[in-house]
């Protein structure tokens, strides 16, 4: 049954696939799934690791917008005593609870190593789904990542597109007080974790393509310059040497070059630099503001914001400096473009009413669709699967991070609490 579903979805457009009379896509939240805590197969006597795994996996599946997670309180089976293979599972009982799919598995530990074996079951079909079943082994601390990989595999099987949850989001936050720092958020965390100790102004974080370092602009040396922090060591280094003011920057998809906005004599223009920060080419030369370059995934074009037509609008240009084309055609203020990982969409922020909303369109500007409406929504960034976006939104008071699918059907809050979370950047997949 699930295999048929996956096949059907593989051939249909995501948002329009129909399963048992319901629309099946992000935002439909129509597919009932039960996620059972992993059974202790040795070394997890209190069941904490098994429960944690199920919690992280459930959250990912919920964020995806495809699923209705069944309430664990309604589960009849005891996860620690019931079987975890198809022959041992009470499919009739799970069907009676309304489950179409079921996730069960076991965990063992040995020293610091945790081994997880997890299976997806097709409840009506009464069998397991080998394509979405996994075995992972690694340090205990990697257990949440094993859950993210499982979520990504389940999404891949059911929708034809690997999920995006084994990844991280860089952001700027004032959580630490009145000044700003770079933080990192993963989908198993309640709160973002502070990565830098700038205690200054920081803006515009962007990932290095290996997802191990975050590029950002900091005022730590009075004037804004481009820096990079290694996530593991927290080591910060200057990326573009010299006295020039750099407002933002972005690594090319292959990590060999940088696009930056340099400000000189009050005027901001886009430049192409090599990996050492040396000038390769000046790409724009206009008296009006040019800012916020965003690479196309093919590394041959970029999108940026320019006020050359009298108001901020989205443009694209080739890396050779030719092929300038305006993308945004409506609205008096369009900024913060980002190019989807597959190259088929741009997203940006457009000014509407009292704030900003997120727009998704083809790279030529056609088919533009506004995917947010509540609060003010800024700085979109694409998930590595090109299916979701993260952005900051004031819809719940403070600026916090929200996730939406690219049609805007599912909208989920990611961060909460005091302080403003802004400028999210979704990393590439971690491996």
């Amino acid at each position, binding site marked *: 049954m699930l295999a048929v579903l996956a096949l059907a979805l593989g051939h249909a457009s995501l948002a329009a696939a129909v399963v048992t009379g319901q629309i099946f896509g992000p935002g439909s939240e129509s597919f009932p799934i039960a996620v059972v805590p992993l059974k202790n197969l040795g070394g997890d006597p209190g069941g904490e690791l098994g429960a944690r795994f199920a919690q992280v996996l459930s959250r990912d599946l919920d964020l995806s917008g495809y699923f209705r997670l069944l309430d664990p309180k309604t589960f009849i089976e005891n996860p620690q005593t019931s079987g975890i293979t198809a022959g041992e599972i009470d499919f009739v009982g799970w069907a009676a609870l309304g489950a179409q799919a079921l996730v069960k598995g076991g965990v063992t530990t040995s020293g610091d190593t945790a081994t997880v074996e997890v299976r997806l079951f097709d409840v009506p079909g009464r069998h397991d789904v080998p394509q979405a079943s996994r075995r992972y082994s690694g340090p205990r601390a990697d257990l949440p990542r094993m859950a993210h990989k499982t979520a990504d595999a389940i999404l891949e099987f059911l929708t034809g597109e690997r999920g995006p949850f084994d990844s991280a989001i860089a952001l700027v936050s004032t959580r630490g007080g009145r000044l700003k720092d770079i933080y990192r958020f993963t989908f198993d965390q309640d709160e973002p974790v502070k990565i830098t100790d700038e205690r200054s102004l920081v803006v515009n974080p962007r990932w290095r393509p290996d997802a191990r370092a975050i590029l950002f602009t900091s005022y730590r040396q*009075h004037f804004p310059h481009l820096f990079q922090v290694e996530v593991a060591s927290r080591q910060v280094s200057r990326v573009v040497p010299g006295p020039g003011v750099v407002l933002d920057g972005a690594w090319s998809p292959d990590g060999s070059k940088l696009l930056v906005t340099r400000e000189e004599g009050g005027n901001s223009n886009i430049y192409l630099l090599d990996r050492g920060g040396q000038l390769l080419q000046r790409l724009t030369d206009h008296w009006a503001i040019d800012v916020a370059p965003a690479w196309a995934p093919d590394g041959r074009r970029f999108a940026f914001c320019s006020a050359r037509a009298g108001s901020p609008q989205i443009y694209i240009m080739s890396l050779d400096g030719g092929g300038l084309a305006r993308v945004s055609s409506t609205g008096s203020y369009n900024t913060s473009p980002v190019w989807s990982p597959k190259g088929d969409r741009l997203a940006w922020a457009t000014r509407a009413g009292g704030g900003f909303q997120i727009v998704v369109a083809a790279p030529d500007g056609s088919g533009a669709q506004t995917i947010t409406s509540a609060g003010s929504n800024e700085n979109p960034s694409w998930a590595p699967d090109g299916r979701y976006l993260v952005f900051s939104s004031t819809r719940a008071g403070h600026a916090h991070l929200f996730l939406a699918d690219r049609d805007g059907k599912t909208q989920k809050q990611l961060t909460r609490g005091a302080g403003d979370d802004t400028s999210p950047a979704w990393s590439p997949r971690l491996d």
Partner: protein
Amino acid sequence: MRTSSTWRIALALLLVLPLAGACKKKGPKPGEAGAGGAGLGEEGLGASGSSLERQKRGLPPEEDGILKDVHFAYDSYDLDGAARDALTRNLDWLRQNSRAKIELEGHCDSRGTIEYNLALGAKRSKAVKDYLVGQGIPAERVSTISYGKELPLCHEENDTCWARNRRVHSVILGQ
């Protein structure tokens, strides 16, 4: 009179506050900042009155001061009549204090995005610098920096607050 006593208080603060370490440690290194503008503001003394240094010390941004703030229309860096009036007063002071160096901070309201406002604030501070230089103030006495919408004076979402936040604020670096 008022001017000199204000300045004395400011100097007294400068003598005390560097002990907190923030200015010394986070201030740019000498030789670092021939940067944007005329290469000022690198010395700890110079940066200490800036809106960012005030923020680090838990002080609100300064509105006006010895030199008047210059205000702008939405998404504009044009100097209107009121802006020129404020600058006429600032010019008088700059001429009377001919050794003073200043830094012009460009600020924006919350109705633009973060990165665009950084560029817009740079346009605003440069427009004011060009006007001062056009009136005979040596360019070396005036540096510029943009804080975009990062250090607002007020946080309300209304016309009055937005108008206050669209400004170029002048910081006196030394005399």
